[in-house]
């Protein structure tokens, strides 16, 4: 069985994020676009922890750039746990979640994402991704 924890496009965890999250930026004078997705599991009774040291190390969500040097840089993306936190978040920094995240809708963690293009280069940039650290999912 695969991990039940993952990214969802709704707080009720009914729609997994199955394809790339789209952000549209005008080539000139771009304006930051915010979006929120949720990290969690629809299965109550399961918990998620960092695989490195379960219950001690936090779960983290990082930004990877599969093709640094072209496309969008990781610094164009900010992550925060609240919409207000996006204002002070640092572009490209990983987001630190709790050490243990419970399953179930009520325990889902909102992940706020802000994208502001710095390239001003017309095109579609698919080089960035959100990725968690290695996770360990088990029964609570």
């Amino acid at each position, binding site marked *: 069985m695969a991990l039940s924890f993952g990214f969802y496009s709704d707080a009720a965890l009914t729609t997994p994020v199955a394809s790339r*999250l789209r952000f549209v930026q005008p080539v000139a004078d771009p304006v930051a676009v915010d979006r929120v997705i949720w990290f969690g599991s629809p299965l109550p009774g399961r918990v998620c922890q960092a695989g490195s040291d379960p219950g001690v190390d936090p779960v983290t969500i990082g930004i990877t750039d599969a093709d640094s040097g072209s496309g969008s840089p990781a610094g*164009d993306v900010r992550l925060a746990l609240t919409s207000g936190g996006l204002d002070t978040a640092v572009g490209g920094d990983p987001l630190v979640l709790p050490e243990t995240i419970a399953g179930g809708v009520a325990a889902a963690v909102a992940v706020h994402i802000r994208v502001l293009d710095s390239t001003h280069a017309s095109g*579609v940039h698919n080089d960035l991704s959100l990725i968690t650290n290695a996770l360990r*999912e088990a029964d609570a």
Partner: protein
Amino acid sequence: MAAFDSGSFDHAFDIGGGGVETGTATAGLSVSVVSPLVFSSASGSIGWSPTVIVGAADVSARLSGSVRISAAEDSARVAALTLIPASAADLEGYEGQAVTIDVTLFRPGQTATWRLFTGTVERSEFALAERLVTLSCRDGWQERPAACASAAQVEALLGGLATTSGRLLPWSDAEPDPVAYFSGLLETIPGATAIDSSGVWQVVRWDIGTPEETFAAGEVFDGSVDVITAARADVPEAVRATLAVRGHRLHSAEVDIDWTAVDYSLYILQGLPVLPKTTAQAALDGVPDWNTRGDPVIVEPTPGSYGPIGGSYYVVSADQAAAICQSFEATLYRRWYQEVEVVYSITIDLGGASSRDDSISAAFSSDFDVSEWESAPREASVSPIYSANPPHPPGTPTGYEGLPAPIPPTNGAVDHFGDITTPDLQAAVAQVVARAMRRVGEGRRQRRVRFARPLDPRWEIGAVLAIDSGGVAATGQVSEIEHDMDIDSGAMASSFTLAVPDGDGEVTGFTATASAPGNTVAHTLDAPDLGNWIGSSYDTLPDPDEDTVQGFLCNVDPRSDGYDVEAPAYVPQFRIVMPDIPAPLRDPLTVETTISAAVTIASGSLEITF
């Protein structure tokens, strides 16, 4: 053999139970940096390419026919596409799969990728003759409210625009029905809901400000502009909203009564009986529906010898005097209730031609136990703690101590609605007005302008757009979208329907307040005239008005000179008949009052020139 492990047994049936899993979770990002030139309809060529992901499979290369996506306010976004299945096994796996539909637009030097749809496959239909499968897809608009577990979650879905009223639309934690709660609240919002092309729940206000884009004649397809006026049935003459609040008008009336015995000489001459205190007290206690306020003041005769008259005396000993009522004064009170329905209402002119009665009504009732209030005897309600610990310094008793609250004003009435508070009332009033506002808004938004242009995925439900083409100049809010891409011919188009309401402002909203009407009830009940009625006497009236025969009824002693055997005799008693309560103060009552409210509907603009 190992003992049965009930924990392991139970655990085996746990949903999601599956031991330890490891891995990472990922979500790809796509940043589309777009030049507005890609949407220009200036001369030149534009290319497009769809990307359809079903589950984890990219089926873009297998598309056939058309891909059609449509969205509207307060409904699911749906998509239909046709593809060539790779194998028979694929046919079994489509339903329930996640689907995304993207389109990439190309102009020389420009590229833009947009998401058009995020949802799941609802149904697949395989046409054997053509070897094509048509997928009908839908987003999670219906499922999203159903997944809510609390009232707060449902209200959050409506972006704080809903007008809640726990009285009219309660949430039950014991039997939660999030779908019904959502539907009820949806009728109160000055806006609409939708899930956008990226699968994100959106709440948009029905506000119409400056358009984000204006499309001139060269930006829309020739002949695609339609102006649709509201149907007559959609625009009634007025919308009337009423809220009925049912409670009780609690009345209290009191009447002073008094009685004095006949002159002592009649005891000597006619042998009349005296009135025992116990009889007087029993008479006071026995008046139907009436009670004695405080304690009656009963005066005893002064012990002594009265007379002589004709050589006879009327002698009263101290012991006898203690048991005789020479006169009394008392205040009798009665409390009763009247069912009252206060109807708060407002009529919002819509200006339509239809005389259809378009009304919104709601009601709720007080749960006050009015029977208990009316019938509880005063004595039974006196707290023994109060009796044992009277206040210091002692106050002047009102005579109503121990009666259940509320205590109406003397000879007046109070309108009582039990546990219905003023905030409850205001919330309920606001909710019915909010429903009326939405009804009005929906009616006026039926005036629409529809147009089509080359595929334009920039606009979502609620976007404010303008068109100035073919003699039609209009500004409105996107209420319906349809994207159509024909894989075979390469044709692509977006059709937009703008709601162009004939409103009276830039925002849709309302204000509403109401206050409970007061009452001016004042009771002035006539006190009964309590006298002394002597039967079997030459002075006895043969046929007195029965209602006036009140007080002490007794008869002349047959041995006295005044005895008339033919005169009517009375049944000895002390008779008290209290006045009736007039019907208008007893029968169920309806009180009409108005709601102070203001409703504004965001206005679009529409001008047609030939």
